[in-house]
């Protein structure tokens, strides 16, 4: 289970002159600091997929980065299966699988080496890694390019290896930041199927996206954030009911 309460993060603005007109008008800009995330709250239980929605710059990526321990929050708390991420980041990292749309691979390593490297960093034995790679190869259809260097992979191949890399250590929770960005229909479908597989295994998944059709297919609950604050929290049915029309309309209603 993932529990986030009153999460906050601010960044110091190094050069205010470089800010765009829109950024200057953003109410989150207070003095020398930009309060990217001000008060974000949500919870994701076992077997649930939570759709994290929000316009560009709403604070989704910053929230997920704090959740993944890459950034340290300035306020609030994050708990993953009871482990306080702030107090025990190294323990929490063992439990997290994180993937973003912009995640890259080590080009001079093969697909297998990329996955195995992260397995080793998570303390797995070579045998356990080999077994897990076999399992993921079947699940994500990696066999045709697993032994090739990843520098010439297509976006879809890269993303499939990245997914394998993110879950090689059997994480207790999975965080996906716009994982289908830039993918073609086939690769997107692979990602969606994979998330469904995680759900079946009772793994909580937090899934940030701009594609509401994916939300409709996958998510049990939805959290909408805007200007760094939670604007909506609830199950998908209630979210759809916000407008009574499409999810897009509901989204628009939620951020007004």
């Amino acid at each position, binding site marked *: 289970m993932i529990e986030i309460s009153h999460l906050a993060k601010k960044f110091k603005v190094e050069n205010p002159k470089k800010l765009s007109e829109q950024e200057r008008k953003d109410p989150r800009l207070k003095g020398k600091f930009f309060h990217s995330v001000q008060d974000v709250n949500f919870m994701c239980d076992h077997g649930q997929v939570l759709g994290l929605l929000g316009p560009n710059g709403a604070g989704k990526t910053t929230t997920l*980065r704090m959740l993944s321990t890459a950034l340290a929050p300035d306020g609030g708390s994050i708990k993953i299966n009871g482990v306080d991420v702030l107090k025990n980041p190294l323990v929490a990292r063992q439990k*997290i699988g*994180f993937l973003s749309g*912009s*995640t890259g691979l080590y*080009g001079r*390593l093969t697909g297998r*080496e990329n996955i195995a490297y992260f397995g080793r*960093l998570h303390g797995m034995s070579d045998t356990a890694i080999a077994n897990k790679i076999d399992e993921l190869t079947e699940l994500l259809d990696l066999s045709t390019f697993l032994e090739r260097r990843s520098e010439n992979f297509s976006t879809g191949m890269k993303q499939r290896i990245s997914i394998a890399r993110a879950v090689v250590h059997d994480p207790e929770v999975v965080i996906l930041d716009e994982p289908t960005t830039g993918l073609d229909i086939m690769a997107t479908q692979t990602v969606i199927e994979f998330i469904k597989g995680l759900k079946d295994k009772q793994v909580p998944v937090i899934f940030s996206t701009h594609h509401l059709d994916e939300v409709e297919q996958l998510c049990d609950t939805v959290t909408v954030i805007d200007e760094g604050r939670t604007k909506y929290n609830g199950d998908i049915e209630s979210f759809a009911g916000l407008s009574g029309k499409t999810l897009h309309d509901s989204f628009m209603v939620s951020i007004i």
Partner: protein
Amino acid sequence: MWLVFKKEVIELLRDRKTLFFMIALPLLFFPIIFGGVFYFSGKAIQEAQEKTLKFAVVGGEFAPILTKQLSARDDLTIVKTSLSSDDEAGIKAFVKTEKVDFVLVVPSTFSNDVLSSGQQTIMLYLNDAGLNMVQRRVNEVVKEIENTNQQSAFISLGVSEAIQEGLLNPIVIEKVSIADKREDLGEKIGGFIPYLVFILCLQGAMLPATDIGAGEKERGTLETLLITPIPRQDLVMGKFFTIAFAGVTSAMVTIGSMFVWGVLLAQGMAIKLITEFMGAISPIDFVLMFLMLVPVVAIFASLLLSLSIYARSFKEAQGYMTPLVFLTIIPIIIALLPGIELKGVYAWIPLTNVALAMKELIKGTMDYMALIPIFVSTSVIAGLLIAFCVYWFKREKVLFR
């Protein structure tokens, strides 16, 4: 830490560009420098020696012996001219247009009788900008005539042979240099070696540093690495050791190449001086040079990693690293300045002290006690920079710029 190091080294060894700067360049640099200098200078000397020079004598009728003896040489060919000694511009143009290699202008007062005419001046016009054998060949002929004229004068004066020597060279200073050939040559080239070695080490470490810092950011792999259950300092040390490994490999290849090619080329080209010089530097001196390079490389590695991790992209990192090359040159230049020795404060200045020590080792005049300040100062600076690197790696402002 070693997991990170192992993976980085695998990637490093699979990158052709890095391998070129780390191994091929230092390996090829010295044979190209040594071989190129020896080959081209040798060839130029040989060509100059074999060339038959054309010359003209203005006023040759006043020095018939000189003209005859010059003409008699196989390596000189006389060209007739109607130029007069007053026409200096014409003489200069004659040489400049390469119709002849040189012109001798003999004054009408020229005489072989030293006692009646005193010291004689013969003008030699030549283009002395390039390598040539003009002066040597003219001097050989003139010296012979000079000796004959001196002898005739001494005989006329009735001066004995012993007095003759005294008259010609009243005081002779016999130089006894306590500097052996190694010290002499070491003084001349010893300052240049650290310059090459430092720059090659830096060059060898620069590419991997860019790749494993800014490159990780650009590829989008850094964030994934930061959220693995590996303490930040272990990540830094793994990366630091990779850069240091590249720098040390570069240094090892550089010094090994310098030693092997220096000896091989000197022997192959039968350059006794170089062979003796290289032979005089003991393996221990080479080991010491290498050991001193370890903290130097650590300084470079931590600086490069700090710059690389601060940069947003590969290109930005290279922009930050270029000035580092110039900054590295400053302490080496200090070591090259006259009067700067491996003593006092200079023994404590990192990089300068290593450059000075390398020079001393090459010269064979190293005070081994100076190794203490060298290793202490460079290691302390390297340690502080590594600590800074770890601190830098924990800063969100640096990692997520």
